[in-house]
């Protein structure tokens, strides 16, 4: 009798394990490292293009380490290295998107007229989509720390590129107060990073 069932392709029958699980099996990372990397990936996910998820970013970083295209240098902790790989993958995505946008000269020119009035003179031409996502995410991060005015001030300082010491001096905080604010911020970030849905 002729079968109408579609014959499964070989690739569909091969069990596929997420790269993060493979790295765990190889003892490259621990379960706790995975939690930490999830929260970091979620954080980076805030400035990703909408078609890329934080989970894709995380798994891609693991893939690059596992397939040898990014080797962990001796003495560098795996988690810190993977965080760096995520950062560079994210930059790649935006570069690719920018190149694609440059093929739309009319839209780019229209945007430049608007951008010239609002952007800092010394900055390079911003990507309108990235600008919008960033503005929304800055607002979302602000809401995350809304009950904590000290954390909001620290966030503002970090966004301005200040170091911890500079922020502490600007705000006139003792080291103890600053460290306790940082602990509260970490707790809020960890909760947000472990709570939300996949996107």
């Amino acid at each position, binding site marked *: 009798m002729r079968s109408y069932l579609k014959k499964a392709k070989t690739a569909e029958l091969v069990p596929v394990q*997420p790269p993060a699980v493979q790295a765990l099996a190889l003892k490259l990372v621990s379960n706790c490292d995975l*939690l930490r990397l*999830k929260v970091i990936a979620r954080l980076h996910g805030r400035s990703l293009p909408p078609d890329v998820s934080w989970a894709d970013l995380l798994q891609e970083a693991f893939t690059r380490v596992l397939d040898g295209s990014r080797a962990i240098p001796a003495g560098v902790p795996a988690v810190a290295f993977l965080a760096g790989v995520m950062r560079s993958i994210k930059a790649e995505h935006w570069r690719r998107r920018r190149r694609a946008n440059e093929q739309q000269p009319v839209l780019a020119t229209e945007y430049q007229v608007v951008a010239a009035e609002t952007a*800092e003179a010394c900055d390079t031409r911003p990507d309108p989509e990235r600008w919008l996502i960033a503005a929304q995410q800055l607002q979302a991060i602000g809401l995350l720390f809304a009950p904590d005015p000290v954390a909001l001030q620290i966030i503002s300082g*970090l966004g301005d590129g200040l170091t911890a010491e500079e922020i502490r001096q600007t705000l006139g905080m003792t080291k103890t107060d600053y460290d306790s604010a940082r602990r509260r911020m*970490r707790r809020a970030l960890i909760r947000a990073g*472990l709570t939300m849905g996949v996107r």
Partner: protein
Amino acid sequence: MSVRPDVGLERLIHGLEQELLEAADEEFTSGAHDLGMNPESKGSSAFMGVKDLSPQLLAALRLRVKRNIDA
């Protein structure tokens, strides 16, 4: 914040990432426990998106396996 949003967000993310890299392991496990998750169990929801595959990622990995088989 006195800079463009995209520049400010990247700086902020970098600063917060450093905080997360410096945090103790216990902060993550206790954070999960506070949310009612048990990261010690194999199928904990704390690992959602980490130990499972999104449909897009599954398709990409299958494509990679297929290429390896065909090669």
